[in-house]
Protein backbone atom coordinates (compact mmCIF):
# COMPACT_ATOMS: atom_id res chain seq x y z
CA UNK A 1 0.00 0.00 0.00
CA UNK A 2 1.58 3.23 -1.14
CA UNK A 3 1.19 6.41 0.87
CA UNK A 4 -1.59 8.93 0.27
CA UNK A 5 0.71 11.60 -1.14
CA UNK A 6 2.26 9.21 -3.62
CA UNK A 7 -1.15 7.95 -4.73
CA UNK A 8 -2.45 11.49 -5.26
CA UNK A 9 0.62 12.54 -7.21
CA UNK A 10 0.45 9.42 -9.37
CA UNK A 11 -3.20 10.21 -10.12
CA UNK A 12 -2.24 13.77 -11.06
CA UNK A 13 0.50 12.45 -13.32
CA UNK A 14 -1.84 10.00 -15.04
CA UNK A 15 -4.44 12.70 -15.66
CA UNK A 16 -1.81 15.11 -16.96
CA UNK A 17 -0.42 12.46 -19.32
CA UNK A 18 -3.90 11.68 -20.63
CA UNK A 19 -4.47 15.38 -21.29
CA UNK A 20 -1.12 15.64 -23.06
CA UNK A 21 -1.88 12.60 -25.24
CA UNK A 22 -5.25 14.06 -26.13
CA UNK A 23 -3.59 17.38 -26.98
CA UNK A 24 -1.16 15.63 -29.31
CA UNK A 25 -3.52 13.29 -31.13
CA UNK A 26 -6.53 15.55 -31.58
CA UNK A 27 -7.04 17.94 -34.46
CA UNK A 28 -10.31 19.50 -33.32
CA UNK A 29 -9.68 22.86 -31.66
CA UNK A 30 -12.38 22.44 -29.01
CA UNK A 31 -10.93 19.06 -28.06
CA UNK A 32 -7.51 20.67 -27.73
CA UNK A 33 -9.02 23.30 -25.41
CA UNK A 34 -10.65 20.58 -23.32
CA UNK A 35 -7.36 18.71 -23.05
CA UNK A 36 -5.68 21.88 -21.83
CA UNK A 37 -8.38 21.98 -19.16
CA UNK A 38 -7.58 18.36 -18.23
CA UNK A 39 -3.91 19.25 -17.80
CA UNK A 40 -4.68 22.36 -15.70
CA UNK A 41 -6.97 20.27 -13.52
CA UNK A 42 -4.23 17.68 -12.98
CA UNK A 43 -1.77 20.43 -12.01
CA UNK A 44 -4.30 21.76 -9.49
CA UNK A 45 -4.71 18.27 -8.07
CA UNK A 46 -0.95 18.06 -7.55
CA UNK A 47 -1.02 21.40 -5.69
CA UNK A 48 -3.87 20.22 -3.45
CA UNK A 49 -2.03 16.98 -2.63
CA UNK A 50 1.10 18.95 -1.74
CA UNK A 51 -0.95 21.31 0.45
CA UNK A 52 -2.40 18.39 2.38
CA UNK A 53 1.03 16.78 2.70
CA UNK A 54 2.65 19.81 4.32
CA UNK A 55 -0.40 21.26 5.99
CA UNK A 56 0.22 24.67 4.46
CA UNK A 57 -2.42 26.77 2.68
CA UNK A 58 -0.17 27.83 -0.21
CA UNK A 59 -1.14 24.89 -2.38
CA UNK A 60 -4.83 25.74 -2.15
CA UNK A 61 -4.05 29.41 -2.86
CA UNK A 62 -2.26 28.31 -6.02
CA UNK A 63 -5.26 26.17 -6.96
CA UNK A 64 -7.51 29.22 -6.74
CA UNK A 65 -5.15 31.10 -9.06
CA UNK A 66 -5.23 28.16 -11.45
CA UNK A 67 -9.03 28.34 -11.41
CA UNK A 68 -9.02 32.06 -12.25
CA UNK A 69 -6.45 31.50 -15.00
CA UNK A 70 -8.48 28.64 -16.46
CA UNK A 71 -11.62 30.79 -16.56
CA UNK A 72 -9.84 33.64 -18.36
CA UNK A 73 -8.13 31.20 -20.74
CA UNK A 74 -11.38 29.48 -21.67
CA UNK A 75 -13.18 32.73 -22.42
CA UNK A 76 -10.41 34.06 -24.66
CA UNK A 77 -9.87 30.66 -26.26
CA UNK A 78 -13.53 30.24 -27.11
CA UNK A 79 -13.62 33.70 -28.65
CA UNK A 80 -10.58 32.80 -30.76
CA UNK A 81 -12.22 29.54 -31.85
CA UNK A 82 -15.33 31.51 -32.81
CA UNK A 83 -13.24 33.80 -35.02
CA UNK A 84 -11.47 30.78 -36.53
CA UNK A 85 -14.77 29.10 -37.27
CA UNK A 86 -16.14 32.19 -38.97
CA UNK A 87 -13.00 32.59 -41.05
CA UNK A 88 -12.41 28.98 -42.08
CA UNK A 89 -15.83 27.32 -41.57
CA UNK A 90 -14.11 24.41 -39.86
CA UNK A 91 -12.66 23.47 -36.49
CA UNK A 92 -9.67 21.60 -37.90
CA UNK A 93 -6.49 23.07 -36.49
CA UNK A 94 -4.45 21.96 -39.52
CA UNK A 95 -6.46 24.34 -41.66
CA UNK A 96 -5.21 27.22 -39.55
CA UNK A 97 -1.56 26.25 -39.74
CA UNK A 98 -0.77 28.84 -42.36
CA UNK A 99 -1.06 32.58 -41.92
CA UNK A 100 -2.61 34.34 -44.83
CA UNK A 101 -2.06 37.90 -43.89
Amino acid sequence: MISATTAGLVLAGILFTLGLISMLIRRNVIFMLVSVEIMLNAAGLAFIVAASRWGQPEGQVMFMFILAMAAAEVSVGLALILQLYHQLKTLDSDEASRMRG
Partner: protein
Amino acid sequence: MGIAFYIAAGVAVLSTIMVITRFNIMHALLYFIVSLLSVAVVFYLFGAPFMAALELIIYAGAIMVLIIFFVMMLSLGSQTAGEERSWMTPGVWIGPSVLCIVLLAELVYLMIQPAEIVGEIKVVDPKAVGKSLFGPYILAVELAGMLLMAGIVGAYHLGRQKKKIVHRFLENTSS
Protein backbone atom coordinates in the same frame (compact mmCIF):
# COMPACT_ATOMS: atom_id res chain seq x y z
CA MET B 1 -8.23 7.19 2.30
CA GLY B 2 -7.93 3.68 1.04
CA ILE B 3 -10.81 2.28 -0.93
CA ALA B 4 -12.66 5.61 -1.29
CA PHE B 5 -9.65 7.25 -2.90
CA TYR B 6 -9.10 4.37 -5.28
CA ILE B 7 -12.74 4.35 -6.40
CA ALA B 8 -12.66 8.10 -7.07
CA ALA B 9 -9.30 7.85 -8.83
CA GLY B 10 -10.54 4.98 -10.97
CA VAL B 11 -13.63 6.94 -11.98
CA ALA B 12 -11.45 9.95 -12.78
CA VAL B 13 -9.04 8.02 -14.98
CA LEU B 14 -11.81 6.05 -16.68
CA SER B 15 -13.87 9.13 -17.51
CA THR B 16 -10.77 11.01 -18.74
CA ILE B 17 -9.94 8.11 -21.05
CA MET B 18 -13.51 8.28 -22.31
CA VAL B 19 -13.05 12.04 -22.87
CA ILE B 20 -10.02 11.60 -25.08
CA THR B 21 -11.48 8.75 -27.11
CA ARG B 22 -14.90 10.20 -27.96
CA PHE B 23 -15.49 11.68 -31.38
CA ASN B 24 -18.60 13.66 -30.48
CA ILE B 25 -17.74 16.76 -28.48
CA MET B 26 -20.91 16.65 -26.39
CA HIS B 27 -20.23 13.08 -25.22
CA ALA B 28 -16.68 14.09 -24.35
CA LEU B 29 -17.93 17.07 -22.35
CA LEU B 30 -20.37 14.88 -20.40
CA TYR B 31 -17.53 12.54 -19.47
CA PHE B 32 -15.30 15.47 -18.60
CA ILE B 33 -17.90 16.76 -16.14
CA VAL B 34 -17.86 13.32 -14.47
CA SER B 35 -14.07 13.52 -14.35
CA LEU B 36 -14.27 16.91 -12.62
CA LEU B 37 -16.77 15.55 -10.09
CA SER B 38 -14.48 12.66 -9.20
CA VAL B 39 -11.49 14.98 -8.89
CA ALA B 40 -13.62 17.06 -6.51
CA VAL B 41 -14.17 13.92 -4.42
CA VAL B 42 -10.39 13.41 -4.37
CA PHE B 43 -9.96 17.01 -3.16
CA TYR B 44 -12.44 16.30 -0.39
CA LEU B 45 -10.49 13.21 0.61
CA PHE B 46 -7.27 15.22 0.72
CA GLY B 47 -8.66 17.62 3.28
CA ALA B 48 -9.69 20.51 1.02
CA PRO B 49 -13.51 20.62 1.09
CA PHE B 50 -13.66 24.29 0.07
CA MET B 51 -11.55 23.59 -2.99
CA ALA B 52 -13.86 20.70 -3.85
CA ALA B 53 -16.80 23.11 -3.74
CA LEU B 54 -14.91 25.61 -5.91
CA GLU B 55 -14.05 22.87 -8.39
CA LEU B 56 -17.73 22.00 -8.67
CA ILE B 57 -18.96 25.58 -8.91
CA ILE B 58 -16.35 27.10 -11.20
CA TYR B 59 -15.07 24.20 -13.29
CA ALA B 60 -18.08 21.94 -13.63
CA GLY B 61 -20.64 24.68 -13.20
CA ALA B 62 -19.25 27.64 -15.12
CA ILE B 63 -16.45 26.66 -17.49
CA MET B 64 -18.04 23.46 -18.74
CA VAL B 65 -21.41 25.13 -19.24
CA LEU B 66 -19.62 27.90 -21.18
CA ILE B 67 -18.03 25.34 -23.51
CA ILE B 68 -21.33 23.46 -23.90
CA PHE B 69 -23.15 26.70 -24.80
CA PHE B 70 -20.41 27.49 -27.26
CA VAL B 71 -20.67 24.08 -28.95
CA MET B 72 -24.43 24.42 -29.16
CA MET B 73 -24.04 27.92 -30.60
CA LEU B 74 -21.71 26.75 -33.35
CA SER B 75 -23.90 23.88 -34.53
CA LEU B 76 -26.77 25.99 -35.72
CA GLY B 77 -28.71 24.85 -38.73
CA SER B 78 -31.43 22.58 -39.91
CA GLN B 79 -29.68 19.41 -38.84
CA THR B 80 -29.72 20.51 -35.20
CA ALA B 81 -32.98 18.78 -34.36
CA GLY B 82 -31.76 15.45 -35.70
CA GLU B 83 -28.50 15.82 -33.81
CA GLU B 84 -30.43 16.68 -30.69
CA ARG B 85 -32.47 13.53 -31.06
CA SER B 86 -29.37 11.43 -31.64
CA TRP B 87 -27.67 12.98 -28.60
CA MET B 88 -30.45 11.91 -26.29
CA THR B 89 -30.24 8.18 -26.97
CA PRO B 90 -29.64 6.03 -23.89
CA GLY B 91 -26.23 4.98 -25.15
CA VAL B 92 -25.02 8.54 -24.68
CA TRP B 93 -26.01 9.23 -21.11
CA ILE B 94 -25.86 5.75 -19.60
CA GLY B 95 -22.08 5.79 -19.16
CA PRO B 96 -21.75 9.14 -17.36
CA SER B 97 -24.85 8.29 -15.30
CA VAL B 98 -23.34 5.02 -14.05
CA LEU B 99 -20.10 6.79 -13.12
CA CYS B 100 -22.07 9.56 -11.36
CA ILE B 101 -24.05 6.96 -9.40
CA VAL B 102 -20.77 5.37 -8.28
CA LEU B 103 -19.59 8.79 -7.07
CA LEU B 104 -22.93 9.46 -5.33
CA ALA B 105 -22.77 6.11 -3.51
CA GLU B 106 -19.23 6.93 -2.45
CA LEU B 107 -20.34 10.37 -1.20
CA VAL B 108 -23.16 8.85 0.86
CA TYR B 109 -20.73 6.28 2.27
CA LEU B 110 -18.31 9.05 3.24
CA MET B 111 -21.08 11.08 4.87
CA ILE B 112 -22.38 8.28 7.07
CA GLN B 113 -18.86 7.30 8.05
CA PRO B 114 -17.32 9.04 11.08
CA ALA B 115 -14.63 11.50 10.10
CA GLU B 116 -11.11 10.36 10.74
CA ILE B 117 -7.70 11.68 9.87
CA VAL B 118 -5.78 9.03 7.98
CA GLY B 119 -2.04 8.83 7.60
CA GLU B 120 -0.12 11.88 6.59
CA ILE B 121 -3.02 14.00 5.32
CA LYS B 122 -3.38 17.31 7.11
CA VAL B 123 -6.64 19.20 6.78
CA VAL B 124 -6.15 22.84 5.77
CA ASP B 125 -9.23 24.81 6.76
CA PRO B 126 -10.54 27.57 4.47
CA LYS B 127 -9.82 30.19 7.13
CA ALA B 128 -6.08 29.65 6.77
CA VAL B 129 -6.45 29.76 2.99
CA GLY B 130 -8.29 33.09 3.18
CA LYS B 131 -5.76 34.56 5.59
CA SER B 132 -2.94 33.51 3.30
CA LEU B 133 -4.76 34.69 0.19
CA PHE B 134 -5.41 38.19 1.47
CA GLY B 135 -2.24 38.45 3.52
CA PRO B 136 1.03 37.66 1.75
CA TYR B 137 -0.58 36.93 -1.62
CA ILE B 138 -2.71 40.06 -2.02
CA LEU B 139 -0.61 41.20 -4.98
CA ALA B 140 -1.26 37.91 -6.76
CA VAL B 141 -4.99 38.33 -6.11
CA GLU B 142 -4.89 41.74 -7.76
CA LEU B 143 -2.96 40.29 -10.69
CA ALA B 144 -5.59 37.56 -11.04
CA GLY B 145 -8.26 40.25 -11.11
CA MET B 146 -6.40 42.08 -13.87
CA LEU B 147 -6.05 38.78 -15.76
CA LEU B 148 -9.80 38.23 -15.57
CA MET B 149 -10.39 41.79 -16.73
CA ALA B 150 -8.09 41.23 -19.69
CA GLY B 151 -9.96 38.00 -20.40
CA ILE B 152 -13.31 39.80 -20.46
CA VAL B 153 -12.06 42.57 -22.71
CA GLY B 154 -10.25 40.14 -25.00
CA ALA B 155 -13.25 37.86 -25.30
CA TYR B 156 -15.48 40.82 -26.12
CA HIS B 157 -13.06 42.16 -28.69
CA LEU B 158 -12.44 38.80 -30.36
CA GLY B 159 -16.01 37.60 -30.25
CA ARG B 160 -17.37 40.64 -32.01
CA GLN B 161 -18.83 39.84 -35.39
CA LYS B 162 -17.60 41.97 -38.22
CA LYS B 163 -20.62 43.18 -40.13
CA LYS B 164 -19.87 43.52 -43.79
CA ILE B 165 -21.79 46.32 -45.43
CA VAL B 166 -22.04 45.69 -49.13
CA HIS B 167 -23.31 48.54 -51.24
CA ARG B 168 -22.97 49.33 -54.88
CA PHE B 169 -21.04 52.52 -54.32
CA LEU B 170 -19.48 52.19 -50.95
CA GLU B 171 -18.15 48.82 -49.97
CA ASN B 172 -16.31 48.80 -46.74
CA THR B 173 -16.10 46.72 -43.61
CA SER B 174 -17.12 48.26 -40.38
CA SER B 175 -17.19 46.68 -37.02
